[in-house]
């Protein structure tokens, strides 16, 4: 026997003594690169990017509430996780499916180390997911109109879900070489996720992502158990990874020790996340919902006082711009009248679904005492409908002297025409089209009180007849209509002035009231 041939000094250099661990890392790198290039994974990541960048993805892209945006990525990354589950399963069953295990059986790295390499090959995918999340969230967080706070645990949940689902793929590969099992598992997980995780039971938190919290709740009132959930996910990931390694013949003592530690994390995470929300948090939410004045701060701009949850202060200028636009269309004395704009949120039902969710605008402390009525504004802004809603609420307040109430009041008279006209004029007239898109089958047009994203706050409804008058006004010179509004303000805002009369005062011909219009129960 002779020494290794000199023809391959490279081989001798490449083989590092006692390189087990480094060989595992080298294999993990090899498999990781293949995973990243897998068509399924590439497609999933591309779809994820499209999802994150879609026009409506961050409905409040211009004014992102960071406490919501920190989990905007979670669902698309779960879909990436499903792709990774299948791709890594194909990689881990490759040897048995293609009959190369005869070769692999005689190579240095045993199956359990190859399994560890497959598990480690998921880390680059976690990293890619984390970079995507960081980029998206970072972009939002740097916007001057961003409000609230993101949670690092929420941000880590999406990429960790990718990791967890990938580990499931590796474990399945260790249990069966069939390539069909992974897609079937994805189908089962997907189905159960949308059926069980959509509910408000504690079961929902056993899934990688939980979407039961509504948008727009102030950060301190949201307080999702994201940290515990992340611990649960990491524990589950480690536990399943340890099981996969043990099944592949890994060192039992190490695998057992790891599994026990991971199981402890899983149980702790599951226990604490299911205890959410706490009783104290529920009380704070009730207070913020029913008695917001107790937790809000107010600031005055001109004759308008804005009362808001502290973290939303950067939006006051946007609100004030809308309110000023409405005021500018009214007579001087009306424009100078003091009003209060108060931010409203339904935090009571945060974390659950199935409630009617109506925000109690009229509360004992804010009873209908004339000017005490406040104009509501929501906790979301920037989708394009919130400013119309605020304009409509402000106009309603200036026209009727009251603030709109939930319970779908239907405005069937001159005040309805005037309210809608002022709202449309003060914002983008194109928003009228979006109102028409939401038209009821019976012909009524709803205007959400806090914008489309917070429909559960209720809306006021205008009949098609009042809408037709406003549409007719849009064909008239704006200056002429604005002048007539100021001149005829008293008549237009007097209770009992009909829409027909309003049309006459404003210089247009109103269409006849249809049968459908007659069926509305007017306020």
């Amino acid at each position, binding site marked *: *026997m*002779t*020494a*290794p*041939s000199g*023809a*391959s000094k*490279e*081989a*001798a*250099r*490449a*083989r*590092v003594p006692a*390189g*087990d661990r*480094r*060989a595992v*890392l*080298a*294999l993990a790198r*090899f498999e990781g690169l293949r995973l990243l290039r897998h068509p399924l994974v590439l497609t999933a990541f591309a779809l994820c990017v499209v999802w994150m960048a879609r026009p409506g993805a961050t409905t409040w892209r211009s004014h992102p509430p960071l406490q919501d945006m920190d989990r905007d990525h979670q669902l698309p990354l779960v879909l990436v996780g499903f792709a990774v589950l299948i791709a890594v399963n194909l990689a881990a069953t*490759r040897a048995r499916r*293609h*009959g*190369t*295990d*005869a*070769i*692999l*059986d*005689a*190579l*240095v*790295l045993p199956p359990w180390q*190859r399994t560890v390499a497959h598990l480690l090959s998921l880390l680059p995918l976690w990293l890619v997911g984390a970079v995507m999340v960081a980029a998206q969230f970072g972009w939002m967080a740097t916007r001057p109109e961003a409000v609230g706070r993101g949670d690092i645990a929420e941000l880590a949940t999406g990429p960790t879900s990718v990791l967890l689902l990938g580990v499931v793929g590796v474990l399945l590969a260790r249990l069966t070489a069939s390539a069909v099992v992974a897609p079937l598992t994805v189908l089962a997980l997907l189905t159960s996720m949308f059926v069980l995780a959509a509910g408000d039971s504690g079961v929902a938190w056993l899934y990688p992502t939980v979407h039961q919290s509504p948008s727009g709740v102030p950060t301190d009132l949201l307080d999702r158990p994201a940290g515990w959930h992340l611990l649960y996910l990491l524990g589950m990931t480690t536990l399943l990874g340890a099981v996969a390694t043990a099944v592949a013949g890994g060192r039992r003592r190490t695998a057992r020790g790891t599994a026990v530690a991971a199981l402890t994390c899983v149980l702790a995470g599951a226990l604490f996340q299911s205890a959410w929300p706490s009783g104290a948090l529920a009380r704070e939410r009730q207070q913020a919902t029913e008695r917001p004045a107790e937790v809000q701060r107010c600031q005055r701009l001109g004759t308008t006082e804005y009362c808001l949850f502290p973290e939303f202060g950067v939006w006051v200028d946007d609100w004030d711009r809308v309110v000023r636009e409405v005021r500018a269309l009214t007579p001087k004395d009306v424009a100078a009248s003091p009003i209060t704009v108060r931010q409203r949120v339904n935090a009571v039902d945060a974390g659950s679904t199935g409630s009617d969710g109506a925000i109690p605008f009229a509360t004992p402390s804010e009873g209908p005492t004339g000017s005490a009525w406040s104009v509501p504004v929501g906790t979301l802004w920037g989708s394009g409908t919130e400013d119309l809603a605020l304009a409509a609420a402000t106009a309603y307040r200036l026209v009727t002297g009251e603030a709109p109430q939930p319970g779908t009041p239907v405005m069937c008279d001159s005040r309805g025409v005037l309210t809608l006209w002022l709202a449309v004029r003060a914002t983008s007239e194109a928003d009228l089209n979006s109102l028409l898109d939401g038209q009821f089958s019976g012909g009524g047009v709803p205007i959400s009180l806090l914008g489309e994203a917070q429909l559960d706050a209720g809306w006021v409804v205008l009949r098609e007849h009042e809408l037709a008058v406003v549409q007719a006004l849009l064909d008239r010179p704006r200056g002429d209509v604005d002048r007539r509004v100021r001149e005829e303000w008293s008549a237009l805002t007097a209770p009992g002035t009909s829409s027909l009369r309003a049309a006459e005062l404003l210089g247009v011909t109103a269409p006849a009231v249809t049968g459908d219009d007659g069926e509305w129960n007017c306020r």
Partner: protein
Amino acid sequence: MSRPRPLPPSSAAPSAAPSPIPSSSAPTVSVSGVTLSFRNTRALDDVSIRFGEGITGLLGPNGAGKTTLLRILATAITPDSGALTVLGHDPRTVQGRHEIRRRLGYLPQNPGFHPRFTAFEFVDYVAILKEMTDRQARHQEVRRVLDTVGLGDRRGKRISSLSGGMRQRVGLAAALVGDPLFIVLDEPTVGLDPEQRLRFRELVAETAEGRTVLLSTHQTEDVAMLCRRVAVLDQGRVRFTGTPAELAAVAEGRVWSSTERDAGARAGWRTGTGEFRNIGDPPPGAQVCAPTLEDGYLLALGDTSGVAG
């Protein structure tokens, strides 16, 4: 057709004790009394064999136990009993198995390939599993072995697009990567056309330099062309060990030609000249022919009913 007669004891060399095969150096592989059964089938029965540097051929019919012996030597399976060392290590221990695998190149009978891998990726993958962790050096080594097997210009091609012969060369490259000291090739020329087989023989001959190669084959031609030593395995037992010339010599004086098939021959077949070539114990006055390796192999097997013609 005549009934085959039992093989004389002198024509084969079964032995319980390790039978050293002539070698230029100390034996790389030593197998002593190895036995392995699969359920009720005894695949290897008290096999003892020793060999060293150079190419050793392992001949035997289907089911002889060749692949089982090779898998044991390649550390893929463990025998029920017996002693063996490979490159000075005992494959039955974890550490020994580890050390052997670090120095082993193994091309199984049906290696299987990952069709979506390129030739380079596949050999690179195997190289990683052989603990080659320095990426740059590993890639140079992969390029080297692919050049060696003549696939340097095809390394970027997917394996699914390669011919059977090229795939076999990819398998050989995977076996050769890392410059192994002990190479186990299990019927590597099966399915190759004559030209591919010739090319493969060249490759094996080149790569055997300074290494120990165990070549399992049905093809006596491969053994005649390549091997310095040969062992014949049949029904799980070693029937012969020696040089190819010694195996051919087993048939010395026991091959003769005749115009009709000799009823006393253990095997006989009509050749292209129209004469019969007979193997066995020739009758007095028979026209004895020069024996070939195949003649010796057939006699060494002890049961030639399958080739009687």
